[in-house]
């Protein structure tokens, strides 16, 4: 199988005016030529195969959206090469548009005042979808989610969840090879999230659509992605499957204990004694993240028992979320 997206040593820099403070500074800024260069994406390379779902993760401001915008052709890379199904996106934007679908969780591409079905009809004409393909797609949608009540509802009257669902359906309508989903589950309730994950999974399976998914919700990643790419400050930190991620970062387990007294203070106390473990406290539990390659959980427990009166304990296997959090905070050693 050949790669549908090829990214080679891509860097994106923005020129930003150095703003000064105060009234005088603002006036001086009017004539300022003092720019600084901000590197949003720094030498990233990856290949994505047809039909993959790739989770593209990173903390806020890591450069995720910038990368997506470059893949869609809205931004031109400062250096490096991007090929999306054989096209250079920013050069053949209109051509590229036929091949891709986009959902930006915060905005909608639907016609605000019109019922959803009208938006679909417009998209059908704009993307030159044949009647047969269009009907087939609507039938598929009908079998996956109950769209009938949505079709005749004006988009502005929809709840956020319904709108996001509709936007995802709209992005898949012209059967694109690649769909970019930028935080599609942001702000949605649990059941809607589940619905949307099922929908994305089904469409990916049925249509072999490649999906690039950015999200902050590890539930999305666990449910959908076999492969994840993590970037931070524009640099690629990790690119491999989710299974490997856990092994790669050692055998982490979370030891949760309950002790007497103020949990915050106790947690700080514990942290002093266990410098190689991450310690945090919530209202009920103190959590100690233990890397079993360095130190056994039992050792930690024994040590803690000497100094603290442990009333209760739990042991949790590492969740993707914790690993990612660790990567965001500390990077890859």
């Amino acid at each position, binding site marked *: 199988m050949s790669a549908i997206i090829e990214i080679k040593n891509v860097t994106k820099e*923005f*020129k930003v005016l150095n703003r000064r403070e105060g009234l005088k500074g603002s006036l001086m800024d009017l004539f300022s030529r003092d720019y600084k260069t901000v590197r949003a994406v720094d030498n990233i390379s990856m290949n994505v195969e047809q039909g993959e779902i790739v989770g593209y993760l990173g903390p806020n401001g890591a450069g995720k959206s*910038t990368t997506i*915008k470059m893949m*869609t*052709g*809205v*931004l*031109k890379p400062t250096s490096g090469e991007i090929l999306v199904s054989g096209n250079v996106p*920013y050069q053949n*934007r*209109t*051509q590229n*548009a*036929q091949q*891709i679908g*986009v959902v*930006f969780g915060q*905005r909608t*591409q639907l*016609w605000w*005042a*019109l019922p959803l079905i*009208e938006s679909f*009809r*417009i998209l*059908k*004409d*704009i*993307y*030159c979808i044949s009647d047969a393909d269009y009907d087939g797609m609507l039938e598929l949608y009908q079998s996956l989610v109950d769209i009938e009540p949505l079709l005749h509802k*004006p988009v502005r009257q929809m709840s956020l969840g319904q709108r996001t669902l509709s936007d995802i359906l709209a992005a898949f309508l012209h059967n694109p090879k690649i769909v970019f989903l930028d935080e599609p589950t942001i702000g949605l309730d649990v059941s809607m999230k589940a619905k949307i994950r099922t929908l994305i999974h089904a469409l990916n399976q049925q249509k072999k659509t490649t999906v690039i998914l950015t999200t902050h919700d590890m539930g999305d990643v666990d449910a959908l992605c076999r492969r994840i790419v993590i970037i931070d400050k524009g640099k690629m930190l990790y690119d491999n499957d989710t299974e490997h991620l856990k092994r790669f970062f050692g055998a982490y387990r979370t030891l949760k204990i309950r002790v007497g007294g103020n949990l915050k203070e106790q947690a700080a106390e514990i942290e002093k004694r266990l410098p190689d473990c991450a310690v945090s406290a919530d209202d009920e539990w103190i959590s100690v993240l233990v890397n079993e390659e360095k130190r056994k959980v039992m050792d930690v427990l024994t040590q803690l028992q000497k100094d603290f009166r442990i009333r209760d304990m739990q042991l949790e296997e590492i969740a993707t979320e914790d690993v990612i959090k660790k990567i965001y905070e500390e990077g890859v050693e």
Partner: protein
Amino acid sequence: MSLRKYLTLTRAGIIEALQFRLSAVVMVIGNLLYLIVVYFLWKAIYASAGTDIVNGMTFADTLIYLVLATALYGFMEMYAVWEIGRAIQSGKIVLDLLKPIEYRSYLFWSYSGSFVVNFFSTFLPTFIAVCLVTHGAVPLGFNLIYFALSVVMAVIINYSIDFIVGTICLFTESIWGINIMKQVVVLLLSGATIPLAFFPDTLRGIVYYLPFQSIYNAPLTLLLNGSPTVQSVLPVLSMQLFWCIVMTLLSKLFWKASLRQITVNGG
């Protein structure tokens, strides 16, 4: 290139415009108030002039011209400057750019639906009313065909100017002031608020060579000319065609520059 891509946007625009019934009513009331002001203002001007004919136009001539100009304004005016400015500021432009249609055409055809609706809801009723009230002061003959041709070009020129001003917002990062300036310049120099006959000679000479008069003055001149001849029609239409081409090319150029700005610096 299939026309269907574009006509579907017209259709959507029509449906969209019809959703907002109340705004149509408010617009008619607003126009009516404006016309009342115009009536009394020009009545005063003619009264103080002391003659029936000022600058070659009678009071009735002036009033018919201005009423039709207002109706034309109600039909052609678009808010593309706002649309582009806001799309750029909010980042919505990214979604528009990812449609398989070039943005300039996309926006134009998205607006075309409201042209159709406004034509039937504002211009046509006003036109019929003027015809009935003035008992045939507006000639109905070949001039209507020239007028129709002229209006199409006027719409294109008007859109191009709006589009150019809209792209400038990308660099100024503010919309309001620029939009107001554009509106004042266009409405004054196009002859939409004051007939060009009332302009001082030198100014009229300059305005004649600017694109703005092709938007309101040209179609209205053709409409009110009851005995069109080749000598009177051809220069007006060819001047419009010239500006049509020039402004379209210019707007393309401006768009290219803006697009570079957007794709290089993220807008």
